[in-house]
């Protein structure tokens, strides 16, 4: 059988980096082909070549046995190749139907026929099993729904080869399960799917084939139904990964952060939290999980001083001990000075300035303090030194600390944020989605740093969508549902299945499917 895609001897060299070296790779119809590798291993370059975003220095691309030149994404789309982007390429102020049919709208008397457009989107959505309201504005939709729009957009252009670039990074476990079903359905229709991911569990759940890349080369293939998650991870990283330490739950020491009956509103003015109380003690990691939009993001913002409360109190024990200080109305700066660090969930919106260098971003929260500021002037030497040190310690992949953060991959940007915040300046850390878009090796080191911080006596509040991460790190787990914490569980006393049920309000709903 002629494969859908055959790449032969693909080499792509950027100044200073070999992105792909002599890569041979085939994709058959009906496959769900997982492409694994660390950030910077060359898998995205390979897919960018297939999608026409860049051209190889040497090598051939065969589409159904015919050699093709793919000079641009529009060329790729014409050839039946579609990409579901990690960062959605959608226009928020347009409707679902307008986004899906952009540039190919049905017309009537020279005008867009909205009714026909909605009908077409509805028919397509029903056929692939991704129901959606064609008239809804994209910006009003939760992330999982926005991804549906992205997928439908690709399918509306008759793509037969679909590339999913880290599609699960921003999804809840329920949405991931549903996405898996949709991918399997598409594969059973004979389409060829490529799946870029860092999560071994998902590979095992849906992939039929696995190719592993490291440092620009194809280093192996595996059968996802036979290989274990640990074996796959070892292949990716090039060494066996440590199993998460199976230590008993930390009891924790004195309560550092006390949240008492806190309520707040969402950005839309609806009640997002209602009278939430919790404690983070010294030397413990408290993990919160919930389906996106249930208030956990707002809780972190309230604690960081970025969102006002409508009621309740936020109290912090000073680093030196003693009575708690009331920080309920304190500014973000005052909270940082009091010792609360924060890894924001949306790093590009909040946590980094892309045009700034790594070194400048690493002092973003402290450039007004000694030794970086002395007598009203910046000490660039001190800033550079911190940059170089943390660059090495967190193994950020960049030529040097003067590199602009905007040119780094998402995973390396996240390492920069982590390096800045996981610092002894802070004794309480608010950490949201610490390993979103981060590869297994880097995630392991981020987790190690978080545990080390806890073991030094800091209190950590972790908010994550990843059950594996939650279970590996948390000493106590709280489940957030509809703006309340509906259940607390100690480490080791709860299963993934139970958490999944609690996250959707303790009931199983057919629409969301079974939790992963």
């Amino acid at each position, binding site marked *: 059988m002629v494969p859908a895609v055959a790449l032969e001897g693909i080499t*792509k060299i*950027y100044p200073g*980096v070999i*992105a792909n070296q002599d890569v041979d790779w085939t994709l058959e119809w009906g496959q769900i082909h997982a492409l694994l590798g660390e*950030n*910077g291993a*060359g898998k*995205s*370059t390979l897919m*960018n070549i297939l999608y026409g*975003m*860049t051209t190889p220095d040497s090598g051939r691309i065969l589409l159904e046995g015919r050699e093709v030149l793919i000079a641009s994404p529009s060329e790729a789309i014409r050839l039946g190749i579609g990409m579901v*982007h*990690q*960062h959605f390429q959608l226009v928020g102020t347009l409707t679902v139907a307008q986004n899906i049919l952009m540039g190919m709208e049905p017309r009537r008397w020279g005008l867009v026929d909205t009714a026909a457009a909605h009908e077409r989107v509805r028919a397509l959505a029903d056929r692939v099993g991704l129901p959606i309201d064609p008239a809804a504005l994209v910006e009003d939709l939760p992330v999982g729904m926005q991804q549906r729009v992205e997928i439908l957009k690709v399918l509306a252009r008759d793509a037969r080869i679909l590339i999913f*670039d*880290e599609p699960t990074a921003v999804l809840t476990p329920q949405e991931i399960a549903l996405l898996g079903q949709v991918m399997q359905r598409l594969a059973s229709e004979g389409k060829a799917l490529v799946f*870029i991911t860092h999560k071994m569990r998902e590979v095992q759940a849906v992939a039929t084939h696995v190719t592993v890349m490291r440092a*620009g080369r194809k280093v192996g293939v595996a059968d996802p139904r036979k290989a274990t998650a640990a074996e796959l991870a070892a292949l990716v990283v090039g060494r066996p990964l440590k199993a998460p330490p199976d230590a008993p739950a930390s009891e924790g020491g004195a309560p550092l952060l006390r949240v008492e009956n806190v309520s707040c509103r969402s950005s839309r003015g609806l009640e997002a939290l209602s009278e939430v109380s919790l404690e983070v003690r010294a030397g413990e990691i408290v993990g919160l999980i919930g389906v996106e939009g249930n208030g956990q993001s707002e809780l972190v913002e309230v604690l*960081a001083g*970025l969102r006002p409360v409508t009621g309740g109190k936020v109290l912090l024990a000073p680093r030196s001990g003693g009575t708690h200080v009331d920080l309920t109305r304190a*500014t*973000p*700066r005052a909270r*940082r*000075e009091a010792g609360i660090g*924060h890894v*924001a969930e949306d790093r*590009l*919106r*909040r*946590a*980094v*300035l*892309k*045009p*700034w*260098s790594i070194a*400048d971003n690493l002092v*973003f*929260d402290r*450039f*007004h303090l000694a030794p*970086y*500021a002395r007598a*009203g*002037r*910046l000490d*660039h030497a001190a800033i550079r030194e911190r940059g170089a040190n943390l660059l090495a310690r967190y193994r950020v992949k960049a030529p040097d600390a*003067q590199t*602009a953060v*905007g*040119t*780094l*991959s*998402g*995973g*390396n940007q996240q390492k920069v944020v982590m390096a800045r915040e996981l610092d002894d300046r802070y004794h309480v850390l608010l950490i949201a989605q610490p390993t979103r*878009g981060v590869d297994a090796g880097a995630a392991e080191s981020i987790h190690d740093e978080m545990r080390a911080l806890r073991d030094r006596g800091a209190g950590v509040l972790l908010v994550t969508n990843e059950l594996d991460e939650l279970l590996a790190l948390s000493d106590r787990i709280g489940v957030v549902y509809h703006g309340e914490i509906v259940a607390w569980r100690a480490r080791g006393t709860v299963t993934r299945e139970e958490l999944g049920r609690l996250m959707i309000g303790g009931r199983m709903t057919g629409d969301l499917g079974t939790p992963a």
Partner: protein
Amino acid sequence: MNAFRNLAWSLAAVLAALLTGGVVLAVSGYDVADALGALLKGALGSPNAVAETLVNMTPLLLAALAVALGLRAGLFNIGVEGQFLMGGLGAVVAGYALPGLPGGLHMLIVLAAGMASGAAWAAVPAWMKARFGAHEVITTIMFNYIAFRLVGWLVRVPLHGPGSIPQTRYIAEGAHLPVLLADTRLHAGFLLALAVAGGLWWLLWHTPWGMAIRSVGLNPEAAEYAGVRVVRTLVGSLALSGGLAGLAGAVQLAGVDHRLVEEGFSAGYGYDSIAVSLLGANHPFAIVPAALLFAALRSGAGLMQIEADVSSQIISVLQAFVILFVAAEAGLRRDREFKAARKAAAVAPPSPPAPPQDPNLPAAGATSGQGQEA
């Protein structure tokens, strides 16, 4: 290397603008060589012409630095024209109401008074933004009109000097900025303006406050998250921006006009300075050659009108072409850099487009700025 390429592109843009301007002249039936020759001669043809160009450049440079500071903080201060006028007002009052002060001291007081009134004038829109979220583009432009009318009335009624012409009294001799070159109007304000350019560069890239300003300008949400006092930074930068505009007015008054007339004191320096700042990519050093170019066009226009019979209004057309070509060049460069960044990032997952370059490395910006001047 990169700085050289940028310099070459900027120069190419300016040349393309002049060529296009030449085409416009030719189409309008003028002798292009005559016109451009007279323009050049008027701007740089004699020591006095050069001095006049630098005299024109001084307020333009200071006002453009005011615009640049605002834009670095993410604020579009369109009120520079009004703040310039208020600076002149503060300076003239301090200049004649305080006779008998020692010369040098009086001059400093005049400049400080101008700067303070410009800052105070900008502080009101700044407060309105911080308190009510009123957009500075609207409020600062409104404050321009208030300033025009206020100064017009003051000059006609309470501050009307001797004689029938609507103008204030002259400031004391001791408050004049010293002349640098005998038999010209070139005054010490020119050196002050260059020093302010250096000072602004230092502020932005070598002080914590400058770092805060740049972070707020790039992304106020991120700045807030990182603990920068966003409101304070915004209000402070807009007030300082107004202070620089006021200083520009004070320098013009103490160096050239010596009294405030009802109309024609600013001669549009405040509005031109917005273009100059954009032309210099809001970098204090790159603004220096940009201000020189605009000043040369301004001061050459008169001779062009006399010798080649070309309306000096054509200069506005030339300036517009310069802005157009520089903007186009900047757009092209952004596109090139975006592609380069995407290539560099292609080993990683595709990220959203990189934002326009931030001349974050003072050294690179400095080289390009000084290079353009040479």
